[in-house]
């Protein structure tokens, strides 16, 4: 199904190139139709053929291996950011579920935090990181990038998990209380299992958030080696070689797919014993 839909999108792209106006078009007086020329919309096969080319003249590295290496580099940052964000998000959710007053005090700040533009935050985090020196531990630049990924990842996790933790039916809570279960026991044996159907979609959002956060942070902090850097480098060559930047863009998309795949596998594992109709 997925392969089919990719083919469909590619076909639509090429179809528009055939029938669309070469220099953009006007619709109801507004200039909204995109240009269909090769510079703005390269052919699909041009994009794909770039993977086989050398990155720069005289280099012995082909573009596909550069994109793959960049993807792997970014993937590790994304994974670190995702895990960090998920841990912080779940931790905050537990605190908010435990203490009503924390929820009321903290939740507005969490919402506000997501309105701060990541681009503005990136240089700040890097400079804070540069000033931090704990017992000889040098703050690496990639950690700042992962933290920015985590910054986008933690929010859906904290909100989704909080909703999940408070979703257990009142009767089940009473049942646990009737066994004189401690708060921690109720958390582990009832609230967390009951939260799983809410946490999985939250983790999906968090995974794509971490990808976006890392790619954008790579660009705005100028970290070398990742897919974000490749996107900006190849985009600079767009006048000469418009198809090249798409190789890096597809790499970033593949990164998102890889993360989504990992979450989907986790979903199948965690929901294996649940009634099928409520599985997400």
């Amino acid at each position, binding site marked *: 199904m997925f392969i089919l839909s990719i083919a469909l999108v590619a076909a639509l792209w090429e179809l528009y190139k055939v029938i669309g106006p070469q220099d953009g078009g006007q619709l109801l007086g507004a200039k909204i139709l995109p240009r269909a020329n090769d510079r703005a919309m390269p052919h699909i096969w041009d994009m794909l053929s770039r993977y086989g080319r050398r990155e720069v003249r005289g280099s012995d590295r082909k573009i596909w291996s550069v994109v793959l290496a960049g993807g792997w580099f970014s993937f590790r940052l994304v994974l670190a950011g995702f895990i960090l964000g998920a841990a912080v998000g779940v931790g905050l959710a537990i605190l908010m579920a435990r203490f009503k007053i924390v929820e009321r005090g903290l939740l507005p700040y969490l919402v506000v935090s997501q309105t701060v533009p990541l681009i503005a935050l990136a240089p700040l985090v890097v400079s804070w990181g540069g000033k931090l020196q704990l017992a000889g531990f040098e703050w690496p630049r990639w950690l700042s990038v992962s933290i920015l990924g985590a910054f986008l990842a933690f929010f859906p996790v904290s909100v989704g998990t909080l909703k999940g933790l408070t979703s257990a*039916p009142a*009767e*089940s809570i*009473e*049942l*646990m*209380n*009737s*066994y*004189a*279960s401690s708060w921690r*026991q109720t958390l582990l*044996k*009832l609230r967390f*299992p009951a939260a*799983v159907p809410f946490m999985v979609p939250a983790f999906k959002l968090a995974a794509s958030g971490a990808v976006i956060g890392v790619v954008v942070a790579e660009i705005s902090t100028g970290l070398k080696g990742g897919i974000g850097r490749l996107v900006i480098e190849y985009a600079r060559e767009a006048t000469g070689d418009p198809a090249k930047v798409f190789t890096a863009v597809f790499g970033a998309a593949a990164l998102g797919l890889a993360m989504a795949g990992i979450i989907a596998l986790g979903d199948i594992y965690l929901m294996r*014993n*649940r*009634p099928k109709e409520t599985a997400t």
Partner: protein
Amino acid sequence: MSAVNVTAASKIFNKGTTKQVDALLDVNLTVEPGEFISLIGPSGCGKSTLLRLIADLLEPTSGTVTVNGKPAAQARLDQDYGMAFQHAGLFDWRNVAKNIELPLELKGWDKEKRKSRAMEMLELVKLPEFAELHPWQLSGGMQQRIAIARALAAHPSILLMDEPFGALDEMTREYMQGELLRICAQTSTTVVFVTHSIPEAVYLSNRVVVMSPRPGRITHLIEINLGIVRGEATRASNEFFHGITAVREALRGTRGDHVDDLDQAAKLVTRNVDDR
């Protein structure tokens, strides 16, 4: 020593505000070991509140509650009672055996002991072949039997039940009533049972406690003399009808503003509205 002793207990919600509700006022009740007691009455009469006072899920505003001679809070810590609710409330993510093991896990039993006790309980409710299945693969009646097995897993001396058969169809319900009596006789468990159904209360109980709303209080204690062994013949007996008539007449005086106890359908609608 009585199994449950409630003395001059009152429960007032939202005390001192405009939303004040006198859920229970000056309630006295003694339940002897081995007795089967039903609490019946229109919506808002405080029968569920009384059950939760005994379970120490709520604290009385005034008065005292003792269970097995101890304060209710201590009895809860000691798991002196098991509890079953209208919705079986089994955990979807645990299989049947693991659901029954839940109270034992919380008590810190080791794995082998838990397993053998779970099997023992499954034998008791006659579902031993379902240990590995998950709750959502079972019918409503089976789920409720598992919930009873779970409630009795730690061998408590008292079973507290809040409309456990309310969501079952009539045939399953009568079968479950028979099973419950058999299980309780086999384990000599004391039962406090909340219900909306007059025949159910009469069929199961040694005594029926009739309650009335606004403020919630006990108005009648009706002795039921159907003997110890009850079966299909019991439901056709004169004593059964006498019991039903006695409870019905006691309830008639306690009718709520919008509840007609003679009209089952109207009552069900009212209850559903109240539940929201």
